[in-house]
């Protein structure tokens, strides 16, 4: 495309002889000038920032399309036309291409045509814009209908008709109808000719212009009725009257049952118009509009504040949800198509770990802090992305970071020997970081470890512990198992176990005591004399031992449980335990009623049977033997005697007896 400059070059106009560089700069320099072409810069500067008092139109220098030489000039005529939308046959003229066989561009013909042009052209009777002459329809009614259904106390028929006419004239634009509404009853003698002559004359003209004057004649009699039209009608009054009238007529012409859905909904709308409510709504709207700037600012401020609060609430919610997801159910890692299912075996986990470790190493990532998003910092601070969480759930071992929380103790920290950083004790405390000298190698789930704490050797015991924990209000899964929390929990579970054991032993001893006393009573009743004396002493001995054993059993139980904690530890705590957990114990007893009942009812029958046998069927010897057994068992605890098969058997039996007793005692309590 040839630009202007090219043309200037060709034609040797300005710029052709100036050096190239200046030409290139030109457009920039010309830009501000472009605003006012043909005005001296100095003159233009005088205008300043105000618009000039006369409009300045710049002379466009752009090229116009070249005129096409399409034969001789086309002929145009002033074509007269009449508008079918008009009733008076007004003829106006507009410019139209001259019609006819003038496609032949011969000069001779044109000359001939010019003569024809001087004749009057035909008047067009079609008019393309006539189709926009759309009239609205308003309901119409007969005299009978009006009399029977449409009469109203505060609307005369004359005014009703005036209203209908206004609606028609202003095309349902109610604000305009209301604005122009100016009804004057024709019966009033004061027809002002001087002022507002237009209104009265309009009334006179009406029948003439609006062809059908039929409505007016019969209404005269009604108009004479002494209606006192209210001084002003509100827009609601007008609408109400019109809508009721329309609805009534609609119903008259089409019964409600025969209306189609559209008609019926219109009918409903018309009927449900409530001027009172509409007026009330408008009052409210006005009040809303008339609020002061302060009120609006306040409202805006409040809305902004509300939004802010809502936003931070949802943010908090999502953060919490994320945290919960991370702690409860590991989200399936999108990177691992099979989800977690394939990592359920330890081999698979080990393989995965090896693979990831390999990846890590190949990336030469020195500090994989992202792997440890379950570490305390993350829990306290902002949670990182779910992806990190996933990784942390799968493995924590690949990290070179040695700082891991107790909740996440499994880690292959042996892989890299240098700890990145040691926090001072206060900070460690504050951020809940714990440092471990030695960690077990391999992969394990942190949640497993937590779960393990709750499990005792036997199912019954586990259930009992769970019941106690439930009683204490512990959730199934600890929300934030930090090192400290886990430690405290561990201690608590230990104590619960101890308490359960102590109670078990106590109940056992009590049961034995009762048996012995029953035996003694029997003997005293049967024989009297020296046998009773023996029994007495034995009993005493037992009693004393039982009293002593109160503390000892704890130790034993500990050892049996084999938790691996130091024995001295427990001894130290022994006293505290008894003091501190007195309440817990009582609570636990109450709470266990159900659990015990459920768990041991099966045994109950057997125990009772055994008891019955012992008491009634077996001889006194057997009884005495059994009575002696606890003492043996106790002595064995001191480490001297080896446990015998009979001893274990009797222990079992007595234990079952005990439980039977405990059941009975429970039942007693219930009663």
């Amino acid at each position, binding site marked *: 495309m040839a630009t202007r400059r090219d043309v200037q070059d060709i034609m040797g106009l300005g710029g052709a002889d100036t050096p190239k560089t200046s030409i290139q700069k030109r457009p920039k320099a010309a830009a501000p000038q472009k605003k006012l072409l043909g005005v001296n810069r100095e003159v233009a500067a005088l205008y300043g920032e105000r618009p000039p008092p006369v409009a300045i139109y710049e002379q466009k220098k752009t090229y116009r399309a070249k005129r096409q030489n399409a034969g001789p000039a086309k002929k145009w005529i002033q074509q007269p036309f009449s508008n079918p939308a008009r009733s008076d046959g007004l003829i106006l003229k507009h410019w139209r291409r001259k019609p006819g066989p003038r496609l032949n561009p011969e000069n001779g013909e044109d000359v001939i045509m010019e003569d024809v042009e001087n004749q009057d052209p035909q008047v067009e009777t079609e008019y393309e814009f006539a189709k926009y002459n759309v009239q609205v329809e308003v309901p119409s009614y007969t005299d009978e209908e009006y009399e029977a259904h449409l009469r109203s106390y505060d609307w005369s028929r004359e005014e009703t008709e005036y209203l209908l006419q206004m609606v028609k004239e202003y095309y349902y634009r109610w604000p305009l109808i209301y604005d*122009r509404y100016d009804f004057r009853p024709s019966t009033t003698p004061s027809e002002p000719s001087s002022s507002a002559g*237009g209104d009265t004359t309009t009334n006179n003209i009406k029948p003439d212009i609006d062809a059908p004057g039929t409505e007016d004649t019969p209404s005269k009699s009604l108009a004479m009725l002494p209606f006192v039209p209210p001084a002003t009608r509100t827009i609601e009054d007008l609408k109400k009257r019109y809508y009721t009238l329309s609805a009534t007529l609609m119903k008259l012409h089409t019964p409600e049952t025969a209306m189609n859905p559209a008609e019926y909904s219109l009918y409903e709308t018309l009927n449900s118009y409530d001027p009172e409510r509409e007026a009330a709504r408008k009052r409210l709207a006005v009040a809303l509009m008339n609020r002061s700037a302060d009120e609006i600012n306040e409202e805006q401020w409040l809305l902004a504040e509300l939004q802010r609060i809502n936003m931070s609430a949802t943010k908090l919610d999502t953060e919490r949800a994320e945290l919960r997801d991370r702690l409860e159910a590991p989200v399936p890692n999108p990177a691992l198509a099979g989800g977690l299912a394939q990592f359920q075996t330890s081999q698979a986990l080990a393989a995965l770990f090896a693979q990831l470790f390999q990846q890590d190493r190949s990336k030469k990532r020195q500090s994989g802090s992202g792997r440890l998003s379950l570490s305390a910092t993350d829990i306290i601070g902002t949670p990182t992305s779910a992806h990190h969480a996933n990784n942390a759930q799968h493995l924590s071992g690949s990290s070179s970071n040695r700082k891991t929380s107790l909740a996440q103790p499994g880690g292959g920290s042996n892989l890299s020997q240098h700890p990145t950083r040691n926090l001072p004790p206060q900070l460690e405390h504050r951020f809940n970081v714990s440092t471990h000298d030695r960690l077990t190698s391999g992969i394990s789930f942190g949640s497993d470890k937590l779960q393990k704490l709750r499990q005792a050797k036997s199912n019954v015991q586990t259930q009992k512990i769970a019941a106690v924990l439930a009683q204490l209000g512990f959730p199934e899964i600890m929300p934030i198992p930090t090192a400290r929390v886990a430690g405290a929990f561990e201690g608590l579970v230990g104590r619960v176990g101890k308490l359960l054991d102590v109670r078990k032993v106590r109940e056992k001893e009590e049961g034995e005591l009762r048996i012995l006393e029953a035996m003694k009573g029997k003997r005293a009743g049967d024989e009297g004399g020296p046998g009773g004396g023996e029994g007495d002493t034995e009993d005493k001995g037992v009693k004393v031992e039982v009293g002593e054993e109160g503390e000892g059993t704890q130790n034993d139980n500990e050892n049996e449980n084999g938790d691996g904690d130091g024995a001295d530890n427990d001894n130290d705590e022994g006293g505290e335990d008894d003091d501190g957990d007195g309440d817990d114990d009582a609570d636990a007893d109450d709470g266990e009623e159900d659990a015990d009942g459920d768990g041991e009812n099966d045994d109950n029958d057997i125990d009772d049977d055994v008891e019955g046998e012992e008491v009634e069927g077996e001889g006194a010897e057997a009884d005495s033997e059994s009575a002696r057994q606890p003492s043996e068992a106790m002595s064995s605890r001191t480490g001297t005697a080896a446990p015998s098969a009979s001893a274990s058997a009797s222990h079992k039996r007595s234990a079952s007896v005990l439980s039977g007793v405990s059941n009975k005692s429970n039942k007693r309590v219930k009663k």
Partner: protein
Amino acid sequence: MNIPNASTVPNPNEYAGDEVSAIVLDPGYSTTRAGFAGEDVPKSVIPTYYGVLDSESGSEYLFGENAIHNPLRNLEIKNPWSTDGIVENWETATRVWEYAITSRLTGAKQTDPIKNGLNDPLNGDPDVEMEGLDDAEKPLTDSPLLMTEPGWSSTKAREKYIEIAMEDWGTPAFYLGKTGVLAAFAAGKASGIVIDIGASMTSVTPVIDGMVLKKGVQKSPLAGNFVSNQIRLIFNQSQPQIPLTPHYVVSSKTPVDAGVPSQAIYKTFEIPPTASFRRNEEERVLTEFKESVVETWAGPGRFSNGTNEELAKATPGRPFEMPDGWNQVFGVERFKAVEGLFDASAALFDAENPRPKDEQTIPRLVQAAMQHVDVDQRPAILAHVIVTGGSSLLYKFNERLNSELQAMFPAPRIRLIAPGNVVERKYGAWIGGSILASLGSFHQLWISKKEYEEHGPSIVEKRCK
């Protein structure tokens, strides 16, 4: 390649136009505008002021820009409008309007070439002699006429308009449009509130669906002429008094320093021209002053509020030179001339110019007009605040108006529509009329001669709603 130009037919889909060579006449207090419908600028803009030369043989009327600025003795300059926006002298008004139409639009074709304004010698004494026209053919027999009227014109006035058009001018079809509605059309809106600040009248017109809310129309005399009078008061009250010298008294001038009395050679007249002539000439200087010096305090708040006056003092002044060479830089006083439009208590006044009433200020007019608008329509109306009229060109006027309206209606969104183009602002009503009268669907609304003859002038009330 067929680029549309002036000689190609417009594509019928482009606009619903159909031009029937209608003439649009927009008579204002300061100027009368006339032109063909469909054009974007009125071809004929003449001052509404006319000259009367009284002599023994009777009165001679002079029309047109060239005639009324000629300092003839006994030349009285008059205006057919009363200062409250109603035509006072119908006879001369008709002649002024007719001159506006015939001098540029139809004249050459209809009247004797000697008698129309086109062929008058450039500095000939009278522009045209209208006497001969009575027996000439009527000037508008070929063109439908659309005239504008202010929103408050009475039924009587409206009937007078159609009588003039039909009987004096012989137009085949006539329509009367309200300036407010037409200015809204010119802005491309069918609904809105039109604030028209002309020469003698400021009007506020709520328009809904192309029709005026009659009860809402507000008017006040605080407009261009009021600002001119404020400037006069400023000149008179300043120390020393500022001399207001019209052009015609100056024969030659020499440059002087600011504030120093002028050293000009003045013309001498045996019998000095009349006071009305001088006043009209002074008005020209004042309009120049309004255009180049006067400034509106842009807000927020009134000029008298708080430190606003101090802030205004800090802005650089604006220089003005009288025709006789006297000149001065106008500082803070340039804000005072317009302030009365917004704040009646800030208006200067004296015995001749009483203090305006509070409810005459523009913000109060808008408020009063909005009272008559149904609350459901108010937000839509306030979203289209159309500003038109020559005096709305006052510097920073729209900024101030906007800030006043925002303060008054804090809740709904307010949008000012004011064309930046000077012509569109001054001739808003005419342009709207030009658009309307060139629409194909409009032609069914004309009141035809036949209808007029059938129903008489009262038909205008019925048809031009």
